[in-house]
């Protein structure tokens, strides 16, 4: 039986479907990422990798709130160098890999971009939007100048498609996206988490060891959709939607608002890795029932009046 194809082309990358895991979610090893791919993801995204191994913040690093979770993992990662072999292992099985990374200096961004490119990643995702580490640790996009420099440096250091992942914690997300676009980014991932906090009234203490963390999950979705909407109206490069996708309907919402692909993080907690298959089946059914011929047909469709 011939089924409608979910294949998408994303900044030159051919993917069997438009779903990926969100950076930092089950991306600690090639084994974990391979499992996500086998469960149906169109591509897999590594944990954000840095120059040095990092243990991240002490526990508690996650707390549950209504509508989502707040995490302050603090970018634990085994280092990009260590992860090279993991990427090679994934590439040996032809799994499309997006390498997420962060750094504290332009030199490190350049260095990491080149070793991840050499390792065989299919695309790079610059994480300059993690709310969980101080400014010294990772350049913030809110700072226009750093964003410009970082994008340019990575662009020059690698021939791969470069995605820039943005934070929603800004007054105007379009500004940062435009800077990235002008400096050679091939796509924008929108969004990272919202800066948030949870406090316990019995112990009268913030729950996270780092006090402040990032809110993800359903609570983030309406904000993420708004960001994707605004970006689609203002930039030309493709958008990867991220934030609270928990059901196939959410994925379709992101596509209609202008995302060319979507990432799933927090929802894997409740729905398991099987979620990729469910989301893809849901998108397929939606396209078929509404007479569309492919994912591309509905990208940004809600903008037409």
């Amino acid at each position, binding site marked *: 039986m011939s089924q409608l194809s979910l294949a998408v082309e994303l900044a030159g990358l051919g993917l069997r479907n438009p779903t990926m895991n969100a950076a930092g979610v*089950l*991306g*600690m090893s090639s084994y*974990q990422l391979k499992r996500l791919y086998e469960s149906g993801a169109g591509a897999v995204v590594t*944990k954000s990798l840095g120059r040095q191994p990092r243990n991240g913040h002490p*526990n508690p690093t996650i707390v*549950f709130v209504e509508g989502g979770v707040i*995490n302050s*993992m603090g970018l634990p990662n085994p280092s990009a160098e260590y992860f090279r072999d993991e990427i090679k292992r994934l590439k040996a099985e032809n799994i499309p890999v997006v390498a997420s990374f962060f750094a504290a200096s332009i030199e490190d961004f350049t260095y990491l971009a080149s070793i991840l490119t050499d390792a065989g990643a299919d695309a790079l995702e610059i994480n300059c939007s993690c709310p969980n580490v101080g400014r010294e640790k990772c350049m913030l996009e809110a700072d226009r100048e750093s964003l410009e420099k970082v994008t340019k440096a990575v662009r020059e250091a690698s021939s791969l498609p470069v995605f820039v992942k943005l934070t929603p914690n800004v007054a105007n997300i379009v500004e940062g996206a435009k800077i990235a676009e002008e400096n050679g980014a091939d796509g924008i991932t929108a969004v990272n988490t919202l800066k948030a906090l949870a406090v316990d009234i019995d112990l009268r203490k913030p729950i996270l060891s780092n006090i402040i963390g990032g809110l993800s999950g359903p609570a983030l979705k309406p904000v993420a959709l708004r960001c994707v909407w605004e970006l689609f109206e203002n930039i030309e490069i493709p958008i990867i939607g991220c934030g609270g996708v928990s059901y196939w309907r959410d994925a379709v919402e992101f596509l209609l608002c202008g995302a060319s692909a979507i990432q799933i993080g927090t929802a894997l*907690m409740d729905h398991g890795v099987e979620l990729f298959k469910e989301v893809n089946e849901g998108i397929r059914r939606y396209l078929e029932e509404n007479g569309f011929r492919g994912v591309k047909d509905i990208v940004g469709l809600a903008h037409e009046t």
Partner: protein
Amino acid sequence: MRREVHRVVKVEEVKQEAKDVFTLYFKDNFCSSASPGQFIMVWIPGVDEIPMSLSTINQKGVSSITVRSVGEATRILCETKVGEKIGVRGPFGNGFTLKGSKPVLVGGGTGVPALYPLASKMLISGIKPSFILGARNAEQLLFKDRLQEILDDLIISTDDGSLGFKGYASECLGRLILEKKCDSIYTCGPEQMIVSIFKEAERRNIFVQASLERYVKCAVGLCGSCGIGPFRVCKDGPVFDSISLRAVMNELGFKKMDPSGRLIPVEK
């Protein structure tokens, strides 16, 4: 409320089990309906949040954890006084599945208390398990009295022979299997013990469920820090059966993820 949300509970009772091992009792609805083998995350404000198996489940709504002091967080937990408060979330993970009619439970060190709720549940289900209670020496044996009270067939095994069988629990297990024709094995304890037991079981073709430990951060299957092969100890485990154990034999007993995600050697 979801079980993933933090609750703060009062420690109702503290029982010293050994020189450096204490059981803390508390009341919590989610914990008292946990499955044997599940664990909770215990928050010690300003210090850490760490995984702990439940060592009592559902006895008049009271739950407990049994903690060996091995570092800062466990030391502070062991010093907790009655009336003090700790944070908990969970229970998490899969827990044990009742299988076989002649099961044997093999516990070593602080793995023993995690098997206690399992033994109770088996008895309630009309199954009479054998139980090998292992430790370095007689002083380190945990839950001996409590287990003796409920079990007909408790075998004590100490490395130094200071009580019961002299040698490793896995050797003791070898004999027991022959003797009793056991048809399933449940184990929790030091990783090398688990490896020996699993090998023993594989040789004799007996199905195993083993509770493993890795570095747990989120406890809900998101962050990947507790990875062992393609699995997450916090979500796919902590209990793994023979099929899964076979799939991770290249790591089990050899390598584990450190908090940065790098594989480092497991203590021998």
